[in-house]
């Protein structure tokens, strides 16, 4: 036999990968069994449940079956949870050679570079972790698809995109869990520390992020929304725990029946979350690789190969404990003392374990003092800098991709959580945000301020609770909550009403209302109704809310109408919105302005002509009273609670009073300089309270002229009169012409 030397180095990456799989085949089998007990079992349960549902059986037998299925749901869910948690174990098994000298010798002496060894181990572990998941998903898909052939489950295919998307969250979360575990393993030198560190790192990352946020929110709460951390990618996309929270958030927020009308959250956040989570996972992987590559083989059996990570985990734990104690404190001194004692005991126990005794133990108190000092420094800085300036931070309009604004009682907006990408809306919302922040932090500059600053006068102002959520182009979510004067919302309302998003949502709402008009089957989604070719009945009413015509439309016709109305809303300028007059009403009180050429043409094509209001439109046949009431010279004031005997929930509403109301009382209130009817509820007030506030109910040609001149939209100005007709409220703008009309109404032409 002659000695031979291979001329060139071969790459043994593949060999290592295969041998790793073979060496860990037991855990692969365990994982596969768990995965088989997971989704496939749940899929079978779903099919049986769907079958029982089809039977529409309400007998005891049905209940027995349901109870029979319940344990299988628990088995399936339990198996899935255990198989997910196997990520820890697989990582530990794949890198266990790092903790035993003979194994280090064996593995490090093989003809592999550190890079090849690390990635072969990483990928083979990932394969053992995820391949059973993939097989389980395929198996479940087959079971469900075959079952669906026989059962024809309603909406079966509609939910699939969501199932895949939510499944991807789980997969990314699992990869992150495995990668963080590998990361924790690489800085440890013994099995005990590795197990401890895996659990510690997986917990401490989200805990620290959460506690930084907690420190900010508790020290500088203005505008900050505590729970918003749970849907910020900084929290949800950086740890498996965060991913779990995001998964449940997605499950409960996704529109499972209609992929095309997704909420803002799952439309834009999902991709962003995925990207951030993947990038974060790669960062963990790179960190793990660098630690692995730089670690010395001789470090085996040391508790921590990189002791700085032990101290980092310890410091973060101390920070979290102290932050929580300070946040829930009743007394600052007792919170600090108890925190120091709790953290100190924990710290020294961990030091003894990590040092395997009391070797150079005098350094342990020094470390603890340094960490405690740093924690107090951070908390102090947080306090001094007003939560590191977070409450003052308003994203620049240019950096905002979309914004959603939720205002209580936001009657003009179709959906409270509507997301706006329109630049004008974004600019208006950021301006509102800046205004609110400025009024809070520069209190003295303003006549009236945000309500948070003046608690003692809580009810003095007409206020609205506003919740703003920004999605920035950098992938972050910024959420704020303020109490602002209603009039501060004028520009936001105007921008929203002129936005493309509003146009689409309003037109779709009208179309959907027409579809649901007079049918037994209710449609929650316009898209679904369109798919099913569902037509509808479009009701058109005049300014006094009298039905002018109801047009029967096919699915196609309804879509034509929707497009026409949407186009008109898109084309509407802010000037037209503020100054234009209403031509007619559509379902759900959506209005058509005189300038809406496409809608008017559509209505004309269907022989609908809406005339101006005449005297006869005002009176109710058979009754002497007119259905019109006019409030002249309304004064807009906010009022103390319960002044009118209403409960607290009404305290933030606008109320209108007639000119002859008790002047002394009026002086107690704070007058506001503008209103925005998006948030007013004057009509309900008027009809639910004494008729004495209605100063006139004349039926005349002048009254009809007054109605024709009035508008349902008033934004950022004071009307000279309010008109109530049926359930509609109209406002008379303060113009020379309108003053003349009002005078004529009272005194005759």
């Amino acid at each position, binding site marked *: 036999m002659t000695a*031979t*030397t291979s001329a060139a180095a071969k790459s043994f990456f593949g060999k*290592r990968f295969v041998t790793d799989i073979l060496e860990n085949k037991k855990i692969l089998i365990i994982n596969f069994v768990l995965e088989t007990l997971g989704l496939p079992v749940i899929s079978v349960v779903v099919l049986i449940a769907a079958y029982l549902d089809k039977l529409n059986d309400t007998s005891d037998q049905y209940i027995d079956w349901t109870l029979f299925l319940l344990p299988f749901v628990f088995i399936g869910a339990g198996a899935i949870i255990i198989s997910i948690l196997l990520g820890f174990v697989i990582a530990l098994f794949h890198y266990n050679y790092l903790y035993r000298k003979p194994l280090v*010798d064996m593995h*490090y*002496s*093989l003809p592999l570079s*550190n890079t090849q060894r690390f990635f072969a181990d990483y990928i083979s572990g990932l394969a053992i972790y995820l391949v059973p998941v993939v097989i389980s998903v395929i198996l479940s898909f087959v079971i469900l698809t075959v079952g669906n052939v026989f059962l024809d489950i309603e909406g079966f295919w509609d939910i699939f995109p969501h199932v895949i998307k939510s499944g991807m969250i789980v997969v990314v979360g699992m990869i992150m869990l495995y990668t963080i575990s590998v990361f924790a393993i690489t800085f440890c030198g013994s099995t005990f520390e590795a197990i401890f560190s895996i659990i510690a790192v997986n917990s401490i990352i989200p805990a620290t992020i959460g506690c930084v946020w907690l420190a900010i929110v508790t020290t500088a709460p203005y505008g900050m929304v505590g729970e918003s951390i749970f849907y910020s990618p900084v929290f949800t996309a950086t740890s498996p725990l965060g991913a779990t929270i995001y998964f449940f958030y997605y499950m409960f927020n996704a529109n499972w029946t209609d992929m095309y009308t997704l909420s803002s959250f799952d439309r834009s956040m999902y991709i962003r979350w995925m990207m951030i989570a993947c990038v974060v996972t790669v960062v963990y992987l790179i960190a793990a690789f660098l630690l692995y590559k730089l670690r010395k083989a*001789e470090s085996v059996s040391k508790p921590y190969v990189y002791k700085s990570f032990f101290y980092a985990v310890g410091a973060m734990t101390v920070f979290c404990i102290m932050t929580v104690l300070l946040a829930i404190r009743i007394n600052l001194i007792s919170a600090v003392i108890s925190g120091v004692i709790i953290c100190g005991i924990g710290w020294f126990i961990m030091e003894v374990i990590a040092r395997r005794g009391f070797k150079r133990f005098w350094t342990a108190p020094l470390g603890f003092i340094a960490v405690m000092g740093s924690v107090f420094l951070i908390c102090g800085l947080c306090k001094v800098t007003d939560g590191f300036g977070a409450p003052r931070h308003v994203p620049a309009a240019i950096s905002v991709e979309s914004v959603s604004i939720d205002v209580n009682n936001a009657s003009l907006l179709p959906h409270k959580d509507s997301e706006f990408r329109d630049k004008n809306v974004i600019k208006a919302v950021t301006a509102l945000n800046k205004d609110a922040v400025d009024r809070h932090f520069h209190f003295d500059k303003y006549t009236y301020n945000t309500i948070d600053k003046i608690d003692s006068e809580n009810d003095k102002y007409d206020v609205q609770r506003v919740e703003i959520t920004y999605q920035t182009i950098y992938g972050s979510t910024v959420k704020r909550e303020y109490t602002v004067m209603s009039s501060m919302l004028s520009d936001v309302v105007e921008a929203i009403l002129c936005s493309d998003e509003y146009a689409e949502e309003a037109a779709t709402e009208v179309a959907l209302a027409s579809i649901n008009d007079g049918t037994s089957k209710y449609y929650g989604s316009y898209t679904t109704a369109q798919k099913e070719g569902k037509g509808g009945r479009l009701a058109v009413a005049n300014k006094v809310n009298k039905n002018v015509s109801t047009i029967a439309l096919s699915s196609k016709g309804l879509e034509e109408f929707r497009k026409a109305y949407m186009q008109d809303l898109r084309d509407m300028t802010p000037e037209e919105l503020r100054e234009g007059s209403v031509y007619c009403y559509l379902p759900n009180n959506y209005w058509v302005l005189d300038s809406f050429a496409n809608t008017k043409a559509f209505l004309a094509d269907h022989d609908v002509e809406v005339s101006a209001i005449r005297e006869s439109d005002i009176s109710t046949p058979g009754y002497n009273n007119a259905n019109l009431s006019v409030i002249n010279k309304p004064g807009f004031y906010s009022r103390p609670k319960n002044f009118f005997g209403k409960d607290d929930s009404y305290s933030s509403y606008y109320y209108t009073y007639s000119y002859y109301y008790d002047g002394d009382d009026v002086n107690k209130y704070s007058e506001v300089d503008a209103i925005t009817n998006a948030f007013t509820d004057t009509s309900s007030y008027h009809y639910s309270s004494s008729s004495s506030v209605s100063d006139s109910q004349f039926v005349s040609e002048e009254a009809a002229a007054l109605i024709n001149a009035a508008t349902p939209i008033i934004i950022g100005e004071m009307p000279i009169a309010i008109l109530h007709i049926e359930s509609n409220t109209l406002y008379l703008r303060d113009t020379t012409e309108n003053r003349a009309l009002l005078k004529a109404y009272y005194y005759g032409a």
Partner: protein
Amino acid sequence: MIELKNTVKKFDSYTALNGVDLKIEKGTAFGLLGSNGAGKSTILRLLSGIYQQESGEVLIDGERVYDNVAAKQKVFFINDETVQFGGYTLKGLKNYYKAFYPNFSEELFESLRKRINLPLNKKINTFSKGMKRQAIVIIALACRTDYLLLDEAFDGLDPTMRIIVKKMLVDAMLDRQLTTVISSHNLKEINEVCDTAALLHNGKIVFSREIDSLKGEVHKIQAVFPKQPDGTPAEYTREDFAATGLEILHFEKSQSIYYIIAKGDEDTVRAAFAPKEPLLLEMIPLTLEEIFIYELEVLGYDSNDISGS
């Protein structure tokens, strides 16, 4: 060829190798000797790419070893433990290594296995310590690498098996010029297997040369000198002999007989003693073990502490 150039290896603050220079020619059977903690195993781990030196160079056929697949492919390292193989069967372990060493010879493996009659499909943790060593040695030989590094290679082997394993190694050396580096405390075995040896102490090489020449260069001398003119016995000190230019490793006098261990070839030693006209001058060649003990004694290492001696 294996080369260590001014190699320094530290474990935290402890310096295990302090500027070691060493050359091992291809085809050599090289013995690494040294006191406990001298750095023998560290050198083997550096050569197998497990450890990375702090400074200096560790080369195999001119290539650095650490993180270098090409160089590591030429080396097989057997450490002094066997627990790591416990979970495998011999067949499983063979297949494991076979995947990483493309020159692996099934034929050779089978012939060696049959020679020592090891079961293929039994878990290695059921083997005796000696059987475990045999198992890894036959796998190492079947991998047919150019360099075989053995740390305490013969530990746990019974005398018969030692002979068989030694024969296997010698066969491989003769057949394919296998370079073997053996670290052992058992100097007798190094003496039997190796042609070259190096002595390490406190992280430094004390000497590195062929064993035969080493033996020829160190002598145990028994000498008796004539009485002085006044009739008193001749009295010489260590320095008297050192002054002749000899390197004296050990000096002892019992009555009129001097026991001296000195370095140098036979002629030089005789020439150094000649002026003192010894009545008796007997030169006995030293065993490797004795050389080891006396060399370390010079360095202040207490021979009683050396295990295996």
